[in-house]
């Protein structure tokens, strides 16, 4: 138990988390502190480039094996199963309509790449290695939950539209974050160590500072979300946003063991499963399920689950992965 507390303390006192907390406090205290939209978008692209490229380089250095395919398939399976579980939990425990429950479930089946990046930094701080191809796993987990959520909405609500699934998926696949992440991963894979040497000053030393600035912005966004969106949330729905990540992470652990991931890799797969989307899926839901209340799913994923994972979830997943697999 002292191990997990130590991990949690180490995580909470990292500059990344403290900048996130600063953003939260600034937003909750109604400070005018803001990161301009264009800078925030540029930083997001930079982070996708850096994390995708580094993952590709790692794959180039370590080679490809069957575990990569297994991890990608496992990730897709998680992204298909988690929204179903989330949907029925919400329907049983809360008064959310089928449309709102399905839209929220899509967010929890999909992933947050920033939570993933925070997880990689926490692991590096703990000197725990992880598999570079988890970047590809992350990208593969973005879209399947959207399909499941739309099918659930159609099955359980008469008001759901017959939005063509292929059209929504094409629009999600064109999301700038995914294009940059996957593209940088492939470029890192092709160019390997040589490419890494060439752009290391850009994606190496700068990375943590830029991540701090991005997490400051995320704290501001989460804080504003909490302030403005909380009136749409009931206690059972807020509780869902806190225990659902733990359920999802628990589902990911046996998959990580089956695939043969390292402790760091297992912790990251658990982090991916536990994270909730707040960039690609909200936009997809506005197109495919416009009847759903965006304030509910955005406040839950960004205002409750993201801070939970960043501050407490990640150290818990690392601790469990280490206990199950060893370091």
């Amino acid at each position: 138990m002292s191990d997990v507390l130590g991990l949690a303390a180490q995580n909470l006192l990292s500059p990344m988390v403290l900048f996130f907390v600063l953003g939260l406090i600034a937003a909750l205290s109604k400070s005018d502190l803001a990161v301009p939209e264009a800078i925030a978008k540029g930083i997001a692209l930079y982070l996708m480039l850096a994390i995708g490229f580094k993952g590709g380089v790692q794959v180039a250095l370590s080679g490809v094996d069957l575990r990569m395919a297994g991890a990608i398939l496992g990730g897709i399976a998680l992204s298909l199963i988690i929204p179903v579980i989330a949907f029925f939990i919400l329907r049983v425990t809360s008064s959310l309509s089928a449309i709102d429950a399905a839209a929220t479930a899509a967010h929890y089946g999909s992933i947050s790449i920033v939570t993933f990046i925070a997880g990689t930094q926490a692991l590096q701080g703990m000197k725990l290695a992880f598999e570079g191809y988890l970047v590809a796993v992350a990208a593969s987990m973005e879209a399947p939950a959207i399909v499941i959520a739309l099918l659930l909405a159609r099955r359980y609500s008469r008001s759901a539209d017959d939005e063509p699934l292929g059209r929504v998926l094409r629009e999600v696949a064109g999301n700038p974050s995914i294009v940059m992440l996957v593209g940088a991963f492939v470029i890192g894979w092709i160019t390997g160590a040589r490419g890494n040497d060439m752009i290391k000053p850009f994606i190496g030393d700068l990375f943590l500072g830029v991540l701090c600035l991005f997490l400051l912005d995320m704290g501001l966004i989460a804080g504003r979300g909490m302030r403005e969106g909380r009136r749409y949330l009931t206690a059972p729905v807020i509780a869902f946003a806190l225990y659902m990540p733990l359920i999802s992470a628990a589902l990911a652990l046996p998959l990580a063991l089956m695939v043969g991931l390292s402790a760091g890799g297992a912790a990251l797969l658990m982090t991916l499963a536990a994270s909730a989307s707040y960039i690609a899926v909200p936009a997809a839901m506005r197109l495919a399920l416009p009847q759903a209340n965006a304030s509910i799913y955005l406040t839950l994923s960004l205002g409750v689950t993201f801070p939970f994972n960043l501050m407490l979830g990640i150290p818990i997943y690392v601790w469990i992965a280490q206990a199950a697999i060893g370091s």
Partner: protein
Amino acid sequence: MEMHAKKRIEVVVEAPLLNRLLALIDDANVSGYTVLPAIAGRGHHGSWNREGLATDAGRMVVVVLIVGADAVSGLMDAIFPLISRQIAIVTVSDVQVVRGERF
């Protein structure tokens, strides 16, 4: 200077919907349009602000078109099925333009 009477259609719509809306406008053979970012506002769904959003889901954009009066009905028929279920404001107003042959 001679002025020409035209119709100005203004559509305030959710940013994720923009590409679909523009595709419909392109199909409707309209000579052009202008897209503007909306900064902040308040409506039936509460207040929103362009700054401080991680996703396009809460952002709004404004699409402005100038068309001849005879094109308004066809254009409305084309875009209404798309925007009827979304957060959107559509207005049509009378305007005067200098170069009437452009619209």
